């Protein structure tokens, strides 16, 4: 307390103190009894790919005899340069970092997954993916319910809170700046002005807290690119007082035409984002799990314009230092006409929520009751996805 009293004399520091105390008002006990967090807390990062990522371009069964007949023009340019994952699967050549993680047993690609929504509408399928409930509730995201159960803190790298992090637990948002911030005095007066408006006063407190946490980040070049946002996310998470989980978004996956070149750039951007995240997480990477999912896959056959239309099953990636990886998971449904969903899409053989349940159980030790609260109506995938060592780190701390 003495420290804060001294700061009150200094006008410039006042803002920092008030911003902090705002947090204290909303988070009981945060200031009055500052708790030192243990150094190694297991971190979780969720990357949502908006638009429907074409999983058959990301990870494809080079030995499936039907592949070429469905999408010769899409697969031919990749065949020779793709990375071999074994078990008959290849990884897109732009996914260099992911391949290297795979070799280090820090990546699990999961094939033929669905978001739970058998719909080809982006908006409904994304709502479903983010909400994770059998009856979509856009005020309740699965990551929020998970972090609520875990009693942790969360952050969305976004202007406003995406559905995935909406809910009972307070979640912050952060995005890089451009204009110069106002003087401290204006913020102080705004705090008074908003005293009868709960929403605005809460938003102001959160905004001030994030600015103080992240002051210098704004200078990063190409601030809005996914790679850069992922890098900032890593820096924030690496902080000892940083949040336990974060949500990142990347759009541009709705590839209806000429997708070969476009997806090449998309995968490069995604890949370097994961690399930046890993670099900036530094030693925290060993305790981190990154989950990459999308709302649906795309048609197995290429369409008339060198692209693909909205489909059903896609793929997901589970990456991180805490992951027991190095193998492809999920059951391959096949690409023969009779094997396809409604004769056109990759048939889903598992639900992303089943895999995330396994992660939450093994990484955050959530109980089955808690898992049912996060993702009701689906079963936990019975597979070891997390290295036991991450559990021992958690237990020791």
């Amino acid at each position, binding site marked *: 307390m003495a420290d804060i009293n001294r700061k009150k004399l200094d006008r410039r520091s006042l803002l920092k103190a008030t911003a902090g105390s705002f947090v204290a008002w909303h988070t009981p006990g945060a200031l009055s009894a500052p708790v030192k967090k243990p150094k190694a807390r297991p971190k979780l990062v969720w990357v949502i790919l908006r638009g429907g990522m074409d999983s058959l371009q990301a990870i494809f069964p080079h030995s499936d005899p039907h592949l070429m007949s469905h999408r010769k023009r899409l697969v031919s340019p990749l065949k020779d340069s793709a990375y071999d994952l074994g078990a008959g699967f290849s990884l897109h050549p732009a996914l260099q970092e992911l391949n290297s993680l795979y070799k280090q047993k820090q990546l699990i690609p999961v094939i033929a997954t669905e978001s739970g929504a058998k719909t080809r509408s982006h908006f409904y399928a994304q709502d479903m993916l983010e909400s994770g409930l059998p009856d979509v509730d856009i005020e309740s995201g699965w990551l929020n319910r998970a972090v609520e159960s875990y009693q942790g803190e969360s952050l969305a790298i976004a*202007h406003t809170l995406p559905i995935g992090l909406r809910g009972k637990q307070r979640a912050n948002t952060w995005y890089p700046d451009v*204009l*110069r911030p106002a003087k401290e005095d204006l913020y102080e007066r705004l705090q008074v002005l908003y005293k009868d408006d709960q929403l605005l006063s809460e938003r102001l407190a959160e905004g001030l807290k994030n600015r103080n946490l992240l002051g210098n980040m704004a200078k990063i070049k190409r601030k809005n690119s996914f790679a850069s946002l992922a890098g900032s996310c890593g820096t924030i998470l690496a902080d000892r007082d940083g949040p336990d989980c974060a949500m990142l978004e990347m759009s*541009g996956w709705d590839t209806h035409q000429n997708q070969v070149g476009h997806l090449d750039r998309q995968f490069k951007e995604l890949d370097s984002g994961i690399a930046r995240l890993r670099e900036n997480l530094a030693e925290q990477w060993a305790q981190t799990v990154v989950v990459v999912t999308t709302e649906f896959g795309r048609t197995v056959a290429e369409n*008339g314009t060198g692209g693909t239309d909205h489909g059903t099953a896609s793929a997901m990636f589970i990456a991180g230092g805490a992951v027991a990886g190095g193998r492809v998971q999920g059951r391959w449904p096949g690409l023969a006409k009779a094997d396809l969903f409604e004769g056109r899409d990759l048939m889903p053989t598992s639900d992303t929520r089943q895999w995330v349940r396994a992660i939450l159980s093994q990484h955050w030790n959530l109980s089955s009751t808690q898992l049912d609260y996060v993702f009701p109506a689906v079963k936990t995938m019975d597979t070891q996805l997390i290295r036991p060592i991450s559990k021992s780190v958690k237990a020791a701390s």
Partner: protein
Amino acid sequence: MTAVKTKKAIIAVNRFGLGATGDELFEAGQDPEQWLLQQLVSPVFDPALGNTESAFITIAEIQSLKAKRRQGDANLKSRAKGPTVGQEIIMPYRQRFLKDSLNFSVNTKTPFAVRLLDFFSNHFSVSSLTHSLTILSPTLERDAIAPNLFGKFEDLLIAVEQHPAMLIYLNNEKSVGPNSLTGRKARGLNENLAREILELHTLGVGGGYTLEDIRQLAMAISGWTVNRENKQYQLGFEFRREAHEPGVRKVLGRNYADTGLDQGQDILRDLARHKKTAEFISYKLAQHLIADQPPQALVAAMTKTWIKTQGDIKAVVTTLVKHAQSWDAESKKYKTPREFIVSAMRAINDNKVADQNLLKVSLRALTQMGHKPFGSGSPAGHSQLNRDWTGSDALMKRIDWVNFISKRSRYSPPFIAARIFDSQLPPLTVKLLAGAESRAQGLALLFLCPEFQYR
């Protein structure tokens, strides 16, 4: 003006308009409903800036310059240090249109009409994904939406779906009927536009259409494409018969004979008059203007008018204006970044063209707040719900921009406050404005007070 009329005028100007400028509050106070209804005429933009047809000339210039650059580069064997094609043509072109639109909104005498233009421009959202789309996207609202804004929805719908920006953005430009002359040789059908017409532009999600309806509509509008360079004909929309899928099409249970271009247009007309479309767009419009959960009776009245008039937009809007539940005393809508920025600029505007730097900074701020013009990145457009604009980071960006603009007015905060709210601001806000440490800070507080954030 009576106190009752003043309160109603404040609602007319802020909820339906773009925030008061000059003497607008006084003008609206004479008869607030009539003040809104007399605005229902198509906004007219400065033709000197260019149109859909001239956009193709610009696109051709870009392509020839790119080719020349490539040639030059090959000769030099290294990239010249000069400006890129984007810096030289595309960005200035885009800036010209965006600045003009912003300035138009700030200075308009028919702010209600501009709000409705913004609504439909977002309803029919296109994003500047490529160089061509960057050049074409601003012309969609000017050439297809504005002229049809207060006519029948079906005419608006057809004009939009035949506009090159939409045809290119949703990939119909290259969609070819599989059994057409062209289709037998190469390429094929692309369902993207047909899907979004049903899902986003007319019936809405859950509007009762099937996957087969999407395919049938896609076939009906195959051959709807773009003439980019054949100067013998008008540049822009072109119906290419040899790419059109022959045969009868069946959509929502109704057969449509193969009448060429008319086949697709007939389907669009029926979709525009459909009950689900009437419900969907009436709801969306009421949600845009009145509340995230608009009163059911209001939506029902608008839907009824839509069905009775076969989608006469002016009649539907009139029903909304005349409905008592549109005038609820509580302001329920949080302004979108664009509404917020325009209303603040109008508040301190002196009936003159805003300066270039202010427009530039404000456009950049819009992007920072997540409301990039022609940049929603989704055919569904930007959200119109409060929760998507009330994030903490978005609020900080508002504060940053207000901090910039509030230094630019000569007027005192109480004077500007009276222009917008007469004497209706709550005591706490009045006290803080009066006690501000500077004119700029007072204005900043005015623009950031809850009464200004909500409309």
